[in-house]
């Protein structure tokens, strides 16, 4: 009986997933092999090879990956440090959590209005980095603080009695204990780093400084040029890359968990 209800409940989720994610994915995949969204002639791998020769696609890809590679570790480290310090000194105070979470709730337009005065005097990449850390670290901090708050305190006290210092306790006990949450926030940060395009677009427009020309700039501009085959191909390439990254991370996390437990 329970199984039937499980399947019934799962059916809605699967239907939504199929209609809103799998079907568009497959359709986009189809476009990637057409020469043109209008003439619809089969182009084989022509779009893929053309895209890898397109300097602006490569620039957008490079900048997007670079931004993710720089911003995500910084945001993670910052969030973890703030969480540890806050839990140590202020405890699990709802007000503190709320204060950290506030930037997440702000619309991009508001953030850009706040930052536009300072953004012009900073290198664009740095300006976006600051906005990203300020906006998205709050969510990480909330999750990390919650994980830290629910951790078994006895282990830390035992380690302390055994003479372990604060740094050792942090990296040998605290971090391994909240590893699943850290992994989740890592995935979340990667996804959020791809969303920085909104702030970039509002600050610098369709054709920003080349240091912050993201993959989404390329996609958006090619929509205006009706080059849907380019958009689809670029998206498929990026999705494949992301698939690989998430796969590696999942595997590493599972391996690490097995080692610990």
């Amino acid at each position, binding site marked *: 009986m329970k199984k039937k209800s499980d399947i019934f409940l799962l059916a809605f989720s699967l239907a939504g*997933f199929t209609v*809103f*994610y*799998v079907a*568009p*994915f497959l*359709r*986009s995949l189809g476009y990637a092999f057409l020469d*043109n*969204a*209008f*003439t619809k002639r089969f182009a084989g791998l022509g779009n893929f090879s053309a895209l890898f020769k397109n300097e*602006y696609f490569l620039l957008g890809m490079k900048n997007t990956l670079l931004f993710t590679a720089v911003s995500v570790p910084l945001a993670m480290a910052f969030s973890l440090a703030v969480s540890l310090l806050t839990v140590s000194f202020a405890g699990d105070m709802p007000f503190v959590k709320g204060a950290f979470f506030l930037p997440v709730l702000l619309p991009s337009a508001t953030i850009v209005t706040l930052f536009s005065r300072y953004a012009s005097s900073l290198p664009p990449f740095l300006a976006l980095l600051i906005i990203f850390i300020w906006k998205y670290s709050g969510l990480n901090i909330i999750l990390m603080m919650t994980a830290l708050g629910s951790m078994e305190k006895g282990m830390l006290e035992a380690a302390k009695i055994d003479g372990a210092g604060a740094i050792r306790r942090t990296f040998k006990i605290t971090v391994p204990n909240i590893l699943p949450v850290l992994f989740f926030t890592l*995935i979340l940060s990667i*996804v959020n780093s*791809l*969303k920085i*395009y909104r702030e970039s677009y509002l600050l610098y427009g*369709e*054709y920003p400084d*080349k240091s912050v020309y993201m*993959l*989404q700039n*390329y*996609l*958006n*501009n*090619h*929509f*205006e*040029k*009706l*080059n*849907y085959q380019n*958009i*689809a191909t*670029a*998206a*498929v390439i*990026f*999705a*494949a890359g*992301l*698939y690989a990254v*998430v*796969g590696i991370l*999942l*595997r590493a996390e*599972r391996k690490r968990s097995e080692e610990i437990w």
Partner: protein
Amino acid sequence: MKLHALALLTAAAVSLSTLCACGGGSAPKREENSDYISPEPLSAAQAAVGGDFEADEKLPVAAYKNIAFVLSGNTLARIDFSTGERVDLVSDTPAFAVGCDGSRFALVGSDFAALYDYDGKKLSEIALEPEASLSYYGCAAVDGDRVVFNSSGKKSDSIFLWDTKSRKVSELPSTWQAGARGARVKSLSFGADGVLYSTFITNAEIAGGDAASSVCDISEDRLISDFKLAASQDGGRIGSDGVYYYVEPYAASNGESWSYFISKVADDGRSSTVAMISPETLKGPGTDSNIIHNVHDDSDFLFHDSYSLEYSDGSNFVVYNLTAGLLVAFNISDSAENCLIALVPETSEQHWYSDAVKELAVQYASESGMQVLVNAIPKDEYDDRVRTKLLAGDDDFDVFFASGALLNSVLKNSAYYPLDEFEGLVNNFDTVLAEGVRGLMTADAGLFGIVLRAEYWGCLRETQESGIPDSWTIDDLFKFCDEIPAGKKVFGDRYMITRSVCNVIEDMIAKDGSIDEKRFSEILSKLKEYNDKGVLCDGSADNYLTYGMLAFDGFNILGNDVGEYRTVVNPTMSGTNYLTVEALMVNRNSKNPESAAGFLELFTRPGYVYDNSGIKQVIGRDITKNSIWPNIEPQYQRVYEYSMKQYKDSKPSVLEALDGFSAEVADEVSLVFDGAETPDDAAKKLADRLSYIYLE
């Protein structure tokens, strides 16, 4: 492992969908288009009701779908359009206004209001206090137990609500009048959701000024929208769907027929047609609608009946032909068969494109029996919405307007229906339109559309004695600068240089697909050198040339005072002219490409092409056939003749399709001329920028 696979698939799919969504906001999808309703099949019924148009006497009328109530004299009659039955229900009533819903009607007089069922049985009645009474003419509307009516005060109207259940009459809040002080109620109607709507006449309109209309949700005391109406949009009302509809007569451009459009006005004042109605449907026997040729300015003027819309729900309409004393009820279905849909951009102030399309739509309907509905899309949304529809492969439109970046992307992707197979149209390109126009309107996939406007940047006020050739290159310009007499300079201002530099860039793009930085820097250096000498554009010397954007149609040419001077196109590198082109094209997925091409063919016929009394299209091949040619002064004739030649070897401008690039060229020219930047740096910046936005 399976869970991990699912997680990976989810992550990939989510990321792909997110990325696709970045492309203009959405992946291709079929967009629900509620802006038009096809008119077929149309069923209509007429009923003579009287009224005296000459005496400005409009009988109080209320209607609901196929039922109408008419108050004539002191008698109220019910008309059933479906059966033609007319029944007198109430007699000897001194009422001034009548309103109704689907089962009841109300009469309002100077000191009473009464509610009846459809058989004339009185359900409720109330005496009105003097401040709520009607003194002359008013409006009324009914929604179940609620009756609303207006009362004319000294300065403005008030609207009263009579709740027949509680038997209370109360004045509705009047903050809705703030947007149009002194406004008088013109119509009252309830929406299907019970919201009360009203339109108003403002003092300005009463005084003969522009008409205006506020659409209000009176029951919530909330102004929904407030917009000006063109004179042709008067006489409408807000339907039960909350949309303002009106009747709009249009004459065909050939002056041989006319028709009526049932149109609606969006909140921002844009107008879109929902149906075309033949003159016979709305015209009573013996009325005298006619197209009168105006000898003075060679235009046609449509003399037509006066109409008032009495009911609308988006599908059913009741129109009061005031001139004929006729009520007409008709229904339009939501079927999209047997009509053409044209998409045009429009703002509340600009109706050029839709006017041009509507004029020929009337002609096309009279010739083919097929109707053309004009779907106006806000100008600032137009390109994105059409792009989305094109990418989604939508087949719910047949003809669309394209210019600038949209035109450029449509041509690059062959996202149009090639017109080469339509002999009549092609023949007109070869025999009617000026030489070179066909080449201008041909891209990789073939003839892409008909040209609505084609403009070039040229110089005015250029004397015959200067020796500037009809077509000159940038090297000719340098030579001219070398030989220029003392006390003279070439251009009136730097903008002419900007346009010339743009021509150079267009040439470079056409040749190599990018800016040749070295050559471009040399040209900028020479221009700066001549400018520093005071012979190019800066300085106090008399100039030969000033700028003007000239269209190939008579209107713009006549709009510029060319005086005794001639025009010269801006210097180029190769002799190719780059024209700003606006086109009407056929949707690649149209269900009726033959009909759509047939409609476009009207734009190329001699009768249309040689009628240059308005802003329309390119001039014809035999310039002397132009209807206004005999009246044109010789100096203007020279402009026409010169413009004619510019089609040859011309191409649609690419730079005009790159938003803001011309402005960046102007900035760079200024920086170079002011010494704030070197020509090398300017060339590099523009080359980088161009590769960014053009070659990306």
